[in-house]
């Protein structure tokens, strides 16, 4: 019987899924057990105080029944257990109803005096222990964990699990929140989790103080939750990010994973686990710089779309295409930039204080020296250079380098790396031509990947187009929607999501331009620009007005949120669509539709 069942199970559930599920079950069981710790902790710590209290009551009550008393007539009478318990109860709790049922004898009073002091000590001990327990760190942590577990378990909408809530996590969280989506945070530092409550998010964000390397913590944070939509590892510890990627790949192979990584070795190790998407801010900045060199408009469009809803149109920088560049700092970023610049056919001189690196020593254009030393800057012929990049990992050095370089040659194109968020106002005041903020690069990149897969596709497609194309798309966007990015949304032309247009799509003459019209006045274009059409696996970027749509197409649009609503109505209500297409007002209700032909006839 069992074997037959097992065979059935094997047939029904693929192997990978089964393994993931079993592991997830085990994890969640162990984490519930840990969450229940709070109540066990209370019970165990309260053992001694409770026993002390019971003993105090028992001794006091027993004593009162044993001590001889007398009734109103002076006959000897002992108190019954109930009377004694009653007297001790109200005496111990300091209520004090007096001497009942009969006035006490001196022996009884002596005993009650003793009991009063004994019971006060007993209560003080019990209540003191309870209060100490409530203020106990371990207990509070256990309680917070339990609270967090409950909050996560109650989530019914898709959410993103973010491990590491530093500057990057915060930026990403804000973008996700603005999209109207939920996320859960795990971070090592309790201050950051406390900051969550102060941050003004529209939705409640559950946060757990704990090590993301512990799969149990990830499970509590919803790794095995059916609504978990993606896992993002953003801690500043490469190993921890690797651990998160591993846990997610092994326990939930179906989930998309995005990890921050700066070292190629770790990135390679991550790739051994499924196919997580890695974001390397230094690498990415180099790519961006190349794109900016080759196609400034494409770069402008990329940064604008990546910045998310509400972002203003960034300025179009124009890095000099020809001439000599100077890069200070030959660390990971410096190396990346130098390689990218050289790949674009530019001459690059590098300044770095450390020449012991064999890789650096092999570089013919390397000047050894401290970049902040005026003499060294004088050596590299800055007067005739066109570009200058300060890429050391020290903000003060970078700022002073930029200032010194500008003094020598005010015409320079200047770029710098900003390491700490606290220095942002200084870098803004310097009015740099290019600024690398690793936290922002990662946050934007992850946002682009998470918001809609179509946007990610569009952004990846961008570098392959030429600058004129990008300038044209940008012009259309600005012309229709203004210089502030409003919303990006996705439309699926499936029978479920767009029932009103299925017949029109099937005719084979469904022009995109005919769809994007204002349902109030069809002569006015809808304030939306189609960025991408996905048909099956084939994507068309920025389709024109004459693009012919087919059933099942997926559209990515950018524009006003009013346009999003209008388009949704158009796709769902046949009458609205009919008007947009032909200019004829068709009655929407059944009764009127029945009546209209009669009127005409």
């Amino acid at each position, binding site marked *: 019987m069992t074997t037959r069942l097992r065979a059935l199970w094997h047939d029904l559930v693929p192997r990978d899924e089964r393994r993931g599920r079993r592991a997830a079950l085990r994890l969640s069981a162990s984490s519930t*057990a840990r969450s229940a710790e709070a109540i*066990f*902790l*209370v*019970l*165990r*710590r*309260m*053992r001694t105080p*409770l*026993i002390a209290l*019971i*003993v105090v009551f*028992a001794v006091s*009550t*027993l004593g009162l*029944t044993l001590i001889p008393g007398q009734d109103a007539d002076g006959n000897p009478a002992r108190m*019954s*257990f*109930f009377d004694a318990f009653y007297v001790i109860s109200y005496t111990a709790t300091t209520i004090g109803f007096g001497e009942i049922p009969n006035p006490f004898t001196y022996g009884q009073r002596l005993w009650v005096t003793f009991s009063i002091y004994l019971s006060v000590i007993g209560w003080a001990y019990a209540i003191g222990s309870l209060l100490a327990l409530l203020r106990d760190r371990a207990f509070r942590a256990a309680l917070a964990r339990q609270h967090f577990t409950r909050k996560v378990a109650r989530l019914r909408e898709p959410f993103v699990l973010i491990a590491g809530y530093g500057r990057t996590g915060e930026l990403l969280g804000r973008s996700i929140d603005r999209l109207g989506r939920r996320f859960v945070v795990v971070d090592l530092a309790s201050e950051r989790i406390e900051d969550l409550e102060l941050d003004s998010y529209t939705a409640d964000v559950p946060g757990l103080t704990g090590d993301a390397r512990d799969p149990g913590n990830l499970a509590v944070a919803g790794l095995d939750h059916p609504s978990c939509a993606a896992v993002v590892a953003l801690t500043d510890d490469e190993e921890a990010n690797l651990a998160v990627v591993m846990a997610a790949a092994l326990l939930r192979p179906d989930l998309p994973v995005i990890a921050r990584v700066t070292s190629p070795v770790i990135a390679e190790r991550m790739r051994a686990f499924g196919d997580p998407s890695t974001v390397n801010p230094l690498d990415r900045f180099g790519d961006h710089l190349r794109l900016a060199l080759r196609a400034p408009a494409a770069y402008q469009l990329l940064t604008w779309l990546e910045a998310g809803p509400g972002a203003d149109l960034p300025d179009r920088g124009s890095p000099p295409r020809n001439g000599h560049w100077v890069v200070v700092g030959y660390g990971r970023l410096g190396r990346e930039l130098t390689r990218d610049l050289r790949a674009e056919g530019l001459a690059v001189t590098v300044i770095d204080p450390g020449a012991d690196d064999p890789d650096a020593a092999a570089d013919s254009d390397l000047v050894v020296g401290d970049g902040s030393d005026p003499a060294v800057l004088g050596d590299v012929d800055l007067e005739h250079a066109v570009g200058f990049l300060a890429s050391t990992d020290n903000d003060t050095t970078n700022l002073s380098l930029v200032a010194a370089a500008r003094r020598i040659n005010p015409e320079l194109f200047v770029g710098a790396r900003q390491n700490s968020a606290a220095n942002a106002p200084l870098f803004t005041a310097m009015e740099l031509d290019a600024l690398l903020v690793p936290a922002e690069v990662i946050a934007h990149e992850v946002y682009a990947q998470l918001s809609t897969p179509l946007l990610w596709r569009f952004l990846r497609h961008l570098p392959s187009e030429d600058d004129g194309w990008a300038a044209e798309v940008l012009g259309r966007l600005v012309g229709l929607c203004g210089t502030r990015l409003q919303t990006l949304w996705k439309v699926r032309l499936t029978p479920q999501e767009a029932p009103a247009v299925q017949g029109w799509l099937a005719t084979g003459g469904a022009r995109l331009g005919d769809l994007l019209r204002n349902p109030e006045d069809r002569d006015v274009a809808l304030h939306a620009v189609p960025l991408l059409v996905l048909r099956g696996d084939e994507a068309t970027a920025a389709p024109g007005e004459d693009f012919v749509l087919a059933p099942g197409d997926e559209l990515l649009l950018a524009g006003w949120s009013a346009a999003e609503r209008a388009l949704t109505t158009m796709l769902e209500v046949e009458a609205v669509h009919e008007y947009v297409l032909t200019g004829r007002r068709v009655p929407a209700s059944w009764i009127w539709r029945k009546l209209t032909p009669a009127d005409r006839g």
Partner: protein
Amino acid sequence: MNLEKVVFGFFVVLAATLNFGFFIGDISRPELHNQYELYAAVVVNLIATVLKFGDRTQIGAVHLATSLVADLQLIGAASMWVYAEHISSAGLTAGWTASIVSLAGGALVANMVSVVLLVVETTSSHRG
């Protein structure tokens, strides 16, 4: 030897023996059942219950359950005694005594289970 185990075993066994002592004797004769013994049984049972708090093992959970059952029955018996003596007009009759002692008998069964668990736990644990 572990002092905690000694205290635990002591209270569990004492709860059972006191309970047994109160229970034994003709069920309807009040003079065979000492009220002090019932009182002691209630107190010792309460202490034994608190000692079982916070044990997360399966056997610990059953331990706690049996103690709670015994508490419930013994407190029921004590309440009946109070009712019979102070509220009922007839006083502590043979009928009341029988009810009280039978409740205590029920508690005795629970206490016996507790003792059996204790013995099982002891014999199944490795010496060391």
